């Protein structure tokens, strides 16, 4: 239906832009999300119905994601519920369902993360969907939490994570053994009129130097709305082989941004 025949399609319960998990609304019946249509409570059965209609290649089981500051008790409950829902989802899985990724939560507790990962790895799943990140934990805490999960998981099954998207965060994930990431970073950058400019061979530094100038640029990105680009006829990044850099200049995109033309977002997102 989307016309993306050559691509795989993963269905996950959380969309970091439009459909955010709401831990206060979640209860033993279902998971609660804030959506553009209001708050919705999704039960396992409803979720599986959606999955079987969408026919994705991969899908994640329903999870109770909690932010980093919840109480220990709430965190424990979220792990128990998530594992329970995984069992429910597997039981309701239609025979020709795509590959199921077991959801792993545990907030900011290393112990709970580990426990959840162990429980999920006992189930018959094709891979793992690690949730509950990007909800308040700091970058310093994260490696320990990630490792608590990945140390326990079998090597041969893929691990996907949700909720971390900055380049530095992706690197943290890769270091811990994560394979798949979804990210809203690009979308937010594009809306702001920023273009990524960091060179790939410098990305091995874990802590980039943030020299924020007045216009919000640093050595990782430039703000194309800034007037210094009005006459800049170079491509966004020299040598980049994307359509935008091969065909257009910074000056043109600056103009498009200034006159609020749709094409600006289209070219930048590329």
């Amino acid at each position, binding site marked *: 239906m989307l*016309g993306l025949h050559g691509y795989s399609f993963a269905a996950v319960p959380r969309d970091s832009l439009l459909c955010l998990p709401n831990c206060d609304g979640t209860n033993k019946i279902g998971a609660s999300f804030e959506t553009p249509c209001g708050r919705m409570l999704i039960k396992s059965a409803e979720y599986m119905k959606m999955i079987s209609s969408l026919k994705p290649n991969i899908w994640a089981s329903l999870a109770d994601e909690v932010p980093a500051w919840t109480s220990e008790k709430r965190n424990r409950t979220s792990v128990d519920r998530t594992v329970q829902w995984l069992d429910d989802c597997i039981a309701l899985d239609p025979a020709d369902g795509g590959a199921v990724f077991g959801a792993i939560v545990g907030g900011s507790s290393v112990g709970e993360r580990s426990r959840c990962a162990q429980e999920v790895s006992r189930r018959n799943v094709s891979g793992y969907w690690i949730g509950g990140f990007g909800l308040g934990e700091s970058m310093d805490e994260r490696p320990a939490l990630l490792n608590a999960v990945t140390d326990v998981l079998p090597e041969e099954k893929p691990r996907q994570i949700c909720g971390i998207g900055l380049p530095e965060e992706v690197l943290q994930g890769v270091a811990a053994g994560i394979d798949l990431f979804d990210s809203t970073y690009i979308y937010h950058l594009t809306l702001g009129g920023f273009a990524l400019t960091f060179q790939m061979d410098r990305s091995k530094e874990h802590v980039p130097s943030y020299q924020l100038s007045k216009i919000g640029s640093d050595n990782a990105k430039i703000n194309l709305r800034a007037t210094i680009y*009005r006459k800049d006829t170079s491509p966004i990044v020299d040598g980049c082989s994307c359509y935008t850099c091969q065909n257009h*200049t910074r*000056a043109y995109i600056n*103009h*498009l941004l200034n006159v609020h*033309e*749709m*094409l600006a977002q289209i070219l930048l997102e590329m």
Partner: protein
Amino acid sequence: MALCFEVLSRFNRARAAQLTLPHFVCQTPLFMPVGTQGTIKGLTTNQLEEIGCQIVLGNTYHLALRPTSELIDELGGLHKFMNWPRALLTDSGGFQMVSLLHLADITEEGVTFQSPVDGKPMLLTPEESIQIQNRIGADIIMALDDVVKTTITGPRIEEAMYRTLRWIDRCIAAHKRPSEQNLFGIVQGGLDPVLRDKCVRGLVHRNLPGYAIGGLAGGEDKDSFWRVVAQCTAALPEDKPRYVMGVGYPLDIVVCSALGADMYDCVYPTRTARFGTALIPEGVLKLKHTAMADDVRPIDPTCNCMVCKNYTRAYIHCLVTKDAMGSQLLSYHNLYYMMKLGRDLHTSIIQGCFPEFVCGFLQKMFPKGDVPEWVCNAMEVAGIDISSCCAPFSSS
């Protein structure tokens, strides 16, 4: 003169021609999409080439405001700025002045208005308009004319017509790049055949590379509209391109082509796309309609464009009600439709089956045979027999 216009084939008044411009060799009849601010809303130049766009129109008024014609000139001209390798046409800025700015005032000197940026009084003269267009660098540039709405009557129309003739001389004098850019004159005169005739003669006397028929597409009734087009195309020279400004609807383009016009521009296909409306042979399809929500056919099963080959009405319905992306797909399809219309007109004239094409077109749009009377009258003058697609009138 920086163009070459060769009529390849005719059917009565309709002609299929080759228009050679500095940046591109075009086939007419053709439709020019409007890329107001240096871009067709939401489409890349690559996609425009895919669709078969030959000439894109840029608006002098908007571009002069942002990013300014001086900047465009400094960066090598509009072609280079937007990376469009084919042809460009800029209008004079006059129309926007009059239609967009409530406080615009037209005097012999030019159009005075309040700058929308800082409220300062400004003046657009014929000289200034041409200079701006020289800097932008389009293949075809338009003279500044005194545009009057066709719904106005009285001595204003005559005043505007004569002023347009006086201004064309100023435009010609101010034009610094005649070997690279073609200055088209614009025929005015409202709906008055006498005034129109005088204007045509005056412009033809100046021996310009091409001529436009202006002042239409502004709310006049269709019967008056086609008659003015017919009169002008009959009087304008055979061997030069004729451009009907602001047209428009596919039906209007077919009629004007039958009467002998070659070039058209309009915001309609792209604007209507942004409202969720697709152009199809039967007329229009409103994708926002709830009936579209579960319609799994493509917009037009007979269309070969990327959108119709890959997406269903249901999916586009989903998008247009939520996201700008939906309108981008519709813009693509609608422009593809218009480009194809131009190609079909050109080919059918060359292959000698123009009347059959017109009949087929009308039959799909008016399956009950209720072709509007103005179309029937125009086709009669054009010498195209469309009796096979018209239901018999109750009284003839």
